[in-house]
C-alpha cells in the first residue's frame, strides 16, 4: 500500500513521544492542503486539512502547521501510538475550482515500543 518509490524517508519515534512529519509543497498558489495516512494494505485515510489563510489547525492528537513563506507543511502527532505506524503524505490543491491534487512522496512513520 505504499504510495512512493523504493526509498521512502522514514521517521522512527518512540511510543509516547511526539512525531513531526514534514512536507514541502510545490505550488505557491495552492490554497488547500490535506494530510493522509496510509496503513499497509489500505487506502489513504483523511487525517486533517488546512486552508492557506490559516497557519495552524488542530484535531484529535494531530496538528497541522502551514508556513507559506517557505512552502512547508508539517503534521504533528502527539503521544505517538503503535497504531500511528503508517505512511503519511500531504496533498495540495490549487483553487476551489480545480480537482487535481498533487500528492507528496510520503514519509513512513515507525513507532518503536
Amino acid at each position, binding site marked *: 500500500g505504499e504510495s512512493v*518509490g*523504493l526509498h521512502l524517508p522514514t521517521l522512527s519515534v518512540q511510543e509516547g513521544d511526539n512525531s513531526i512529519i514534514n512536507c514541502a509543497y510545490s505550488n505557491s498558489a495552492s490554497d488547500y492542503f*490535506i494530510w493522509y495516512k496510509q496503513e499497509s494494505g*489500505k487506502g*489513504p485515510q*483523511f487525517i486533517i486539512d488546512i486552508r492557506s489563510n490559516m497557519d495552524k489547525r488542530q484535531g484529535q492528537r494531530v496538528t497541522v502547521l502551514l508556513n507559506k513563506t517557505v512552502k512547508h507543511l508539517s503534521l504533528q502527532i502527539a503521544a505517538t501510538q503503535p497504531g500511528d505506524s503508517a505512511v503519511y503524505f500531504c496533498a495540495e490543491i490549487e483553487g*476551489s475550482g480545480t*480537482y487535481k491534487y498533487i500528492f507528496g512522496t510520503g514519509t513512513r512513520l515507525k513507532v518503536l515500543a
Partner: protein
Amino acid sequence: DARVTQTPRHKVTEMGQEVTMRCQPILGHNTVFWYRQTMMQGLELLAYFRNRAPLDDSGMPKDRFSAEMPDATLATLKIQPSEPRDSAVYFCASGLRTGFGNTIYFGEGSWLTVV
C-alpha cells in the same frame, strides 16, 4: 461511517483478459476519482467525474482503459486487454466541495495483478 466501497479487493488475471473494477462513492458526493498507485509512481490520477460527467481522463491509456459512471452510486474502471504493467492498486475516491475545501475520501483499493 460512510465510506467508498470498491470491488474486487484483489484480482489476479492473465494477460489479455478484461478486468472491471467497481466503486460505490459516498452517498451525496458529486465528484469521483480513479487513481492508480505503484511503488515507483505513487498516486496517479486516471479519471475524474463530476455529477457523473467525465471531465478528465487524460491519465488513462485510452486504447485499453475506460471509465464510466452508469449512475450516481456506481463508477467503473475497465481494462481490456490487461497487461502485466497494469499491475497496481487502483483506488476510487469521492468528494464533495464544502465551504472549507475539496476533501476527497479513498476506498480500500482494488489490488490487481496481471500475470
